[in-house]
């Protein structure tokens, strides 16, 4: 927790405008404890409305994506499972692009709402397909692959037939993930979802342990396999859809952070889930700092940062935790 607090502290302190630490503390005190330190309104706005809200959304999104990755890897018994494998991200992209380019419901629906509906629709379709194919972990994965391809194709179709070059670049930026424009309303949406998701995950920690040994073993231990799988898959869909609708499609976190956490605390979910959430949160906050400071006056998509900086870190963890040959 100290690590996360430090990361958020860094996120609030670092930015294009240099603001003294004392001013930062005063701005936060003004808003949280009703003090009235005399500081420039522009500084208070930057610290409270821009940097702190953005840091909290980063942390919540990172935690949520990492947790869903850990859950899916256990539920589907596949180390390569992650939120995106269920087609959720592809569906969210299609939803957002449909609103951005085709203007479907524009004015009423925001980009985020479009992404959310797209994500839920994709998950619904993939679930139906998987159920129709007889259910089971492998069928869900295969249905997810098919769903992803379908929705990616739809997105490409819309972009190539309707977008101009400038729009296509904007879409690419959004598809790679962006925390631009994040405000307190987003904090109020994504933080409770991440928090609630964490509580439900923790309540299922032992069940997830049982799943890791296979559905037969889980059933033998008295776990209602179908019901639990449906509940937890639904939970991952809602968590991913909420995150993707706010910050865009950010890969890598859901896939890799659970593995990094497993190397550090072992496979038992009671410890794995909190570690995953915490590392995911810290990682995203740091990635966002890098994304908005690495190029002066410009912003890099956070998905590029998570992969460019996350991959070597993951390689290092893999190397450190190498098995004796």
């Amino acid at each position: 927790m100290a690590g996360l607090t430090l990361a958020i502290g860094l996120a609030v302190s670092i930015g294009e405008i240099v603001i003294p630490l004392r001013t930062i503390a005063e701005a936060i005190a003004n808003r949280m404890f009703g003090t009235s330190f005399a500081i420039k309104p522009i500084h208070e706005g930057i610290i409270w409305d821009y940097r702190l809200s953005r840091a909290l959304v980063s942390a919540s999104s990172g935690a949520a994506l990492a947790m869903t990755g850990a859950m899916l890897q256990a539920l589907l018994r596949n180390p390569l499972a992650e939120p995106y494998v269920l087609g959720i991200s592809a569906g969210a992209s299609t939803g957002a692009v449909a609103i951005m380019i085709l203007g479907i419901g524009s004015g009423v629906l925001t980009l985020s709402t479009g992404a959310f509906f797209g994500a839920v629709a994709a998950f619904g379709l993939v679930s139906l397909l998987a159920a129709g194919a007889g259910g089971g972990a492998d069928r869900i994965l295969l249905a997810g692959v098919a769903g992803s391809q379908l929705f990616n194709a739809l997105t490409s179709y819309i972009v190539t037939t309707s977008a101009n070059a400038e729009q296509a670049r904007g879409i690419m930026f959004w598809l790679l993930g962006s925390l631009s424009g994040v405000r307190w309303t987003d904090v109020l949406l994504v933080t409770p979802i991440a928090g609630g998701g964490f509580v439900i995950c923790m309540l299922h920690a032992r069940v997830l342990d049982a799943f890791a040994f296979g559905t037969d073993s889980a059933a033998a231990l008295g776990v209602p396999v179908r019901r639990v799988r449906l509940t937890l898959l639904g939970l991952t869909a809602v968590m991913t859809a909420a995150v993707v609708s706010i910050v865009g499609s950010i890969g890598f976190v859901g896939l890799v952070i659970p593995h990094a956490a497993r190397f550090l605390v072992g496979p038992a979910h009671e410890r794995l889930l909190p570690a995953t959430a915490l590392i995911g949160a810290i990682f995203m906050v740091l990635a966002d700092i890098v994304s908005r400071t690495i190029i002066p006056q410009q912003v890099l998509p956070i998905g590029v940062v998570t992969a460019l900086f996350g991959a070597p870190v993951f390689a290092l963890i893999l190397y450190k935790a190498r098995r004796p040959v």
Partner: protein
Amino acid sequence: MSSDPKRRPFILRLAFAVLATFAISAPAFAASTTYPLTIANCGRSITFDRAPGKVVSIGQAMTEILLSLGLADRITGTAVWFSPVLKQFDAENSKIKRLADNDPSFEAVVGTGPDLVAAEFEWHVGPSGSVGTYDQFSKLGINTYVAPADCAAKDNTTGGDGVRKEMLKTEVIYQEIAELAAIFNVQDRGEALVARLKEREDKAIASVAETRVKDIPVVFWFSSKEVDGEAFMAGRNGAPAYIMRALGAKNVIATNEEWPLVGWETVAGLNPAIIVIAGMDRRRYAADDPAIKLTFLNSDPVASRISAVEKKQVVVMDSQAMSPSIRLVDGIETLAVAIRQFGLAK
């Protein structure tokens, strides 16, 4: 900066304008083209044996230049439109076939049987053009011409809107007009058009020659994908940068990209005195509507504290005036009027 070095080019411009005015009154003196005509264009050499009878124009700015040269009857198709055509060409343009609002297909272009394809952007017609490459067209005996504004010291290989290494100048627009006029053997019309544009440009510059504040910090906000999110702001070498420099203002955004995405914290830190926002008919990005841009500026806790917003020094400019086109002169006039209105010029 002393005012002397600035005044000298102004006097030169004035002299040029006077000469140009003579050119308007005496169009008969304009030379007619001797074919074959060879010109250097975007790193290639292109040759015309005669004036093209049919041309397809890809890009609104290119189309409007051809229309300004009185060549409507030679245009067999247009494509890539950002906003409605300049009002005075409404009637002529409505008779021309619009092949596509965005990228037309290669066959649609070739299908109209053009002798020439003139493109505003290299990414449409160029070494790896999305509509067609130079080779594809030349194999069918079709000549290609690309606006020099899109390749003079500009790198289009990076994707997006490209990276400009040197500042765009109206000179390159005037060069384009002169070249097209020569290609179509309407040099008198080209000279007259350039003279008119130069005269307006010089007049606008002269109107703020005695600016009270030198290097007025300015930003140009085109649009944003999310209203609260990062904004597409004009980079330091594009058309808006030229507008600013011509009028003695300073673009506070310092990157070479044509339209980099810039965060509002950065803009607040640069504290511009004037914010120019783009007006456009397009409604695809959340912040395309200038009214939405204004609402954001007035309500956002940080943006509303920028001095340009606090002092109500925000000006709406047509988006076409922010691109390398004949409307660039409209942009210079609009900002010049704003500088005077805001009391920044004596």
